[in-house]
């Protein structure tokens, strides 16, 4: 700061304007820009690393066979690559998770946003968020060792050791904080005037919450659901540990299933020869997973912008 003054004084003519160009500032700007650009390089890196081996994969296995046939047996002597069983597994487990997480997450959000006293919220919200900080391998262990063993076996004696139901239940609990905290943000953004208006018309708290606040925050709430579903689809460790590694074209949640993520994990963790068709199949499934979650993330981001624009 001192140097700036000393430098500009002898210039005489216009002391307010800097006389010497500051190259250091320009260099710093470039460095900062480069740091921000790393995030774009990351996306670029992801796309390149899943796309190139996938293209090689589709050169050998027609994309129609990959997407529309129902046998996934990469380890057999005569391997078949129909991804539908993996999609089926992903869908069944995600559906179970969503059936649990959406009502519980939304209910938690309404309670925290509309009912809890500030004091109670200060304790309850961080406690719920601890759930989001539990490593997913721990959830997987709990699903396999506790939920299947002590909760589901007594109810469904025929259940398999590895099953979709336990993984789906635990995954549903795992995404409650995601759905609750994003929905609560959306509800907190609803102007107090709308609530006051409803009360002025004689509405009860429940009526206000369900017919004014929730509809007003709907785009944000839907964004939270979409993001929660996207997380469920991409979750790996719970399904790898608790749902088994057997591709299974079924809707029965009491059986084991393999998902897209747990196939990638199992094949990638094993000894796969680089360049083999099995190695490339990891990337083909990865590409599919990336495309699905990318699409859902974009929908969610759009919806969040919508409610931000509406109320801020």
């Amino acid at each position, binding site marked *: *700061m001192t140097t*700036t*003054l000393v430098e500009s004084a002898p210039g005489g003519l216009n002391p307010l304007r800097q006389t010497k160009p500051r190259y250091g*500032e320009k260099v710093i700007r470039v460095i900062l*820009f480069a*740091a*921000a*650009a790393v*995030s*774009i390089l*990351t*996306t670029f*890196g*992801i796309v*390149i*690393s899943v796309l190139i*081996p996938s293209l090689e994969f589709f050169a050998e296995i027609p994309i129609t066979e990959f997407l529309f046939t129902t046998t996934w047996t990469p380890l057999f002597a005569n391997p078949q690559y129909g991804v539908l069983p993996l999609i089926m597994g992903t869908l069944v487990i995600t559906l179970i998770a969503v059936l649990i997480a959406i*009502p*519980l*997450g939304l*209910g*938690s959000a309404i*309670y925290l946003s509309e*009912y809890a006293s500030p004091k109670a919220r200060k304790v*309850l919200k961080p406690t*719920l968020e*601890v*759930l989001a*900080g539990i490593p*997913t*391998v*721990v959830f997987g*262990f*709990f699903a*396999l*060792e*506790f939920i299947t063993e002590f909760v589901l076996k007594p109810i469904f004696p025929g259940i398999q050791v590895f099953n979709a139901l336990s993984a789906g239940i635990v995954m549903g609990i795992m995404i*409650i904080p995601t759905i609750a905290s994003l929905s609560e943000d959306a509800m907190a953004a609803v102007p107090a005037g709308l609530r*006051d208006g409803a*009360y*002025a018309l*004689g*509405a009860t708290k*429940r*009526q206000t919450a369900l017919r004014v606040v929730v509809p007003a925050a709907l785009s944000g709430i839907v964004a939270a659901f979409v993001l929660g579903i996207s*997380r469920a689809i*991409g979750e790996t*460790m719970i399904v790898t*540990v608790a749902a088994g590694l057997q591709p299974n074209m079924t809707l029965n949640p009491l059986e084991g299933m393999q998902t897209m993520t747990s196939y*990638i*994990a199992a094949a990638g*963790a094993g000894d796969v020869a*680089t360049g083999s068709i099995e190695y490339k199949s*990891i*990337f083909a499934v*990865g590409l599919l997973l990336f495309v699905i*979650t*990318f699409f859902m*993330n974009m929908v969610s*981001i759009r919806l969040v912008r919508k409610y931000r624009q509406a109320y801020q």
Partner: protein
Amino acid sequence: MTTTLDTAPDSAPVDLEGNGQPLVDKTFRWILFLCLAVGIIFLAVLLAYVTIKGWPRLTPTLWENMPSIRRPERAGAQSAITGTLWVIAFTALFALPIGFLGAVYMEEYANPASRFTRFVEINIQNLAAVPSIVYGILGLAIFARALALGQTVITAGLTLALLVLPVIIVSTREALRAVPQNIRHGSLALGATLWQTTWRQTMPAAIPGMATGTILALSRAIGEAAPLLLLGAVSFISFNPTGPFSAYTTLPIQIFNWTKESREEFQILASATIVLLLVILLAMNAVAILIRNRTQKRW
């Protein structure tokens, strides 16, 4: 809204919150509370279960001994603990400078209306939601194979750094945004350059927020297992890493390996290791919350 008007006249006393259907309203409130309680009870049962089950093995042998396949009763997790420390050190080394500087660019330098800035913003939001196993694929294809770093500590550190980068950028930007404009204007008015202002005024004022975000990001990296499955961490490792190009394993991966073993002793060992991991993570979270509460706005 129409129905609201219909039911409203029932309520006789003047009360801002209305008074109709008190029983339904009360039930509704309890249902909402139960929704919240399910998550919290689940958390409590999980913590109780792993603590009780792992209790017999929560002894110093857990961190003094190396993993063993044959003798679960004496096996420990030392190589996983040191491996976690090595990997997280490299994650922090790569992610923190890039995350902080990138956030400074986005918040202090970039033109918020420009197309490029908006593109970077959406890109970061999307990266935050990309499944972690996809980062494993990136690490496998680019760091392990294309750059030939192999299945080493440094590959894991680089991959996890990219994974947590969005978290660090978003939290740092929030911390910077919370610094009042007056401070920047005051500094600029005294003739300081933009970087002098950022480095000497804005960033020091944002340190608590940045620290909180950093801790949360690193605790996410510590618990992450999925990408490391593709990066060689599952192999049986009974030695401590010796450097950035050493083979390694980490706590979550060690838990995963033990979960796969059928003998009950290994499940007890896995529970004990889970308790160790959770204690580390909860301690980090507590520190983050403490920093946040201690330093909440003084402007």
